């Protein structure tokens, strides 16, 4: 045999800290779940785990460390997105806490599964190698398939899960094939090394627009675009969002998007800045189509969950602008947008959860009638969320949209910025319709539907509202954090 010396790999705990801790903690919660069915214990443990994970990020915040053969990186951008994801997860658990038993879904596995999914997302956010990106995507996906089908005796939940799984597997095929093609052309899977390889191509005069390489890039982007529900790959979104248990929908709509966008950002900015003109043009068109499609179809929806699903497609389009701008401003604006969108969308779903009865088959717009009278505070919160989604100042939605459009404009994507502004004008229509229905329409039913604004859910809603208003009034607090993060990605 030739000299196959086994090099003991160096374990860098700074780099690994956040995802690894959460994975281990999730296993712990899983074990605790076997001995107790008290969901209060489980949620407390889970929230503690999320908190400690967030704290782990704060320990070395600001430094940039790379480890495990450069497959994983610890940098400001990663930590920041991770924090947003952790906050989103915590909110999800809060709003799910009373919902799950109410819907007869009181399986303790819910908590560890959510934690596992989140840990996969953290891993994906920090991934800087195609291998880790692939594994991160699959970890979060498999956990989400299960969560989507969590209510499985209900047919809708199972249907949503099988649709998601089939199409998710389909997309995974493209992801692997794309990775294979990129690996074949460059001989590398590490994002930074791919960029180096491409620059040597440039210096040796080799053309960069090799069709195989471009096809690989396209396939990977398609798979990531599927996760964020970008336009022609969005078709699963409404069905899955409608069928999944509402807290899971809320969770998917923000966390998956955030993690997949982060991976897309790294993929494009670290590995393929050289091909920027190519992907900026094509995916710019997709971004435009996503914004237009999501907003226009949302108008025609009467089911609230589906309306929010199409709205989330539209918001994916907006976030894509930040990604495509591929600039410091764009990335910083993306993180702000992600934060604002996470708070807002989770809040909006929380309000739906507060209104959702057990076994309610569909959730129609008209069910909101008279909410302003029945529970004004909930309606007020929903109003704030709708205004934030529509991008009305002084909510977070406005500040973040402003940043995104400006970044796009600066990156010479002015046509996208214009389409963005126009479509967000259109979007005002259906968000406003919700507000009009709540405040200006009286309930039909003689028997008022009960609302379930329990303590934990109210806490979640309150946090979301405060966050939205705070980010809206002083986004600086957050953008200051987000300032230098960009360099580590955009290098």
């Amino acid at each position, binding site marked *: 045999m030739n000299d196959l010396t086994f*090099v003991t*790999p160096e374990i860098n705990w700074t780099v690994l800290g956040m995802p690894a801790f959460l994975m281990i903690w999730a296993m712990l919660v899983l074990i605790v779940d076997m001995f107790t069915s008290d969901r209060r214990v489980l949620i407390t443990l889970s929230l503690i785990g999320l908190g400690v994970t967030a704290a782990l990020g704060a320990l070395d915040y600001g430094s940039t460390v790379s480890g495990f053969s450069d497959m994983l990186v610890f940098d400001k951008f990663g930590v920041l997105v991770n924090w947003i994801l952790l906050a989103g997860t915590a909110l999800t658990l809060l709003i799910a806490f009373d919902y799950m038993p109410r819907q007869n879904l009181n399986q303790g*596995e819910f908590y560890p599964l959510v934690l596992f999914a989140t840990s996969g997302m953290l891993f994906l956010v920090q991934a800087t190698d195609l291998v*880790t990106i692939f*594994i991160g995507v699959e970890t979060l996906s498999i956990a989400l398939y299960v969560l989507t089908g*969590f209510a499985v005796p209900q047919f809708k939940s199972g249907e949503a899960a099988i649709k998601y799984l089939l199409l998710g597997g389909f997309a995974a095929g493209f992801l692997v094939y794309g990775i294979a093609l990129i690996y074949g052309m460059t001989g590398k899977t590490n994002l930074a090394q791919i960029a180096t390889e491409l620059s040597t191509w440039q210096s040796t005069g080799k053309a960069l627009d090799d*069709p*195989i390489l471009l096809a690989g890039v396209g396939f990977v982007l398609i798979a990531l675009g599927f996760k964020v529900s970008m336009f022609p790959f969005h078709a699963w979104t409404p069905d899955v969002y409608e069928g999944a248990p509402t807290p899971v929908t809320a969770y998917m709509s923000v966390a998956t998007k955030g993690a997949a966008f982060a991976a897309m950002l790294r993929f494009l900015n670290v590995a393929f800045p050289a091909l920027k003109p190519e992907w900026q043009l094509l995916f710019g068109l997709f971004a435009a189509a996503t914004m237009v499609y999501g907003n226009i179809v949302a108008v025609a929806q009467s089911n609230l969950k589906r309306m929010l699903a199409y709205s989330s497609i539209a918001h994916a389009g907006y976030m894509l602008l930040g990604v495509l701008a591929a600039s410091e401003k764009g990335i910083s604006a993306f993180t702000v947008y992600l934060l604002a969108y996470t708070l807002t969308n989770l809040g909006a779903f929380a309000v739906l959860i507060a209104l959702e009865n057990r076994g309610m088959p569909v959730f129609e717009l008209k069910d909101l009638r008279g909410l302003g009278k029945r529970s004004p505070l909930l309606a007020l919160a929903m109003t704030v969320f709708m205004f934030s989604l529509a991008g009305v100042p002084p909510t977070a939605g406005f500040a973040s949209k402003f940043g995104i459009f400006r970044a796009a404009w600066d990156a010479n994507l002015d046509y996208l910025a214009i389409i963005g502004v126009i479509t967000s004008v259109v979007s005002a229509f259906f968000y406003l319709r919700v507000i009009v229905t709540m405040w200006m329409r009286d309930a039909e039913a003689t028997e008022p539907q009960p609302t379930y604004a329990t303590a934990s859910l109210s806490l979640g809603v309150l946090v979301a509202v405060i966050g939205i208003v705070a980010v809206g009034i002083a986004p600086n607090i957050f953008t200051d954090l987000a300032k230098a993060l960009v360099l580590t990605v955009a290098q």
Partner: protein
Amino acid sequence: METFLFITTAIVAVGAALAMVLSSNAVHSALFLILNFCSVAILYFLLRAPFLGAVQVTVYAGAIMVLFLFVIMLLGAENAELGEEKIGWQKPAGLILGVALLAEIGYVAYRGTKLIDAPVADATNIGAPTTISAKLFSTYLLPFEVISILLLIAVVGTVVLTRRRVVAREERQS
């Protein structure tokens, strides 16, 4: 010899894949898929990847496909497509798109950079179990460990998804 082997195996692989997609009985499909996996495993051996070839046969063609067969038998799902096709255009459209996709990928492979046709001489060992394991437990240790978490999630998920029914029934009875 190698060329002959490649061509024969490739033909078998493509034929098995086509038969898998075309056969109406799901059991036949599964068997054809196993045939496809085995022929691809032969290609792996040709490509200096004996370890992966073995994994392909044992894990893929063995374990995973057995699971498939088991579920088909369990559900009696050999002929799930007896009803009339509800989306009439789906088949032709799928075929057209398939042809378009194939044309595009083929064109890409044709136009793209010709890779080093002759493998480097010392590529002999790249697929040996020792090489693979050495890399797996050093460079690729992290993904390897995370894969274990992924499998754990799958196990938990499988339990959650199938146990549900029992719980619900118990509740109904009580």
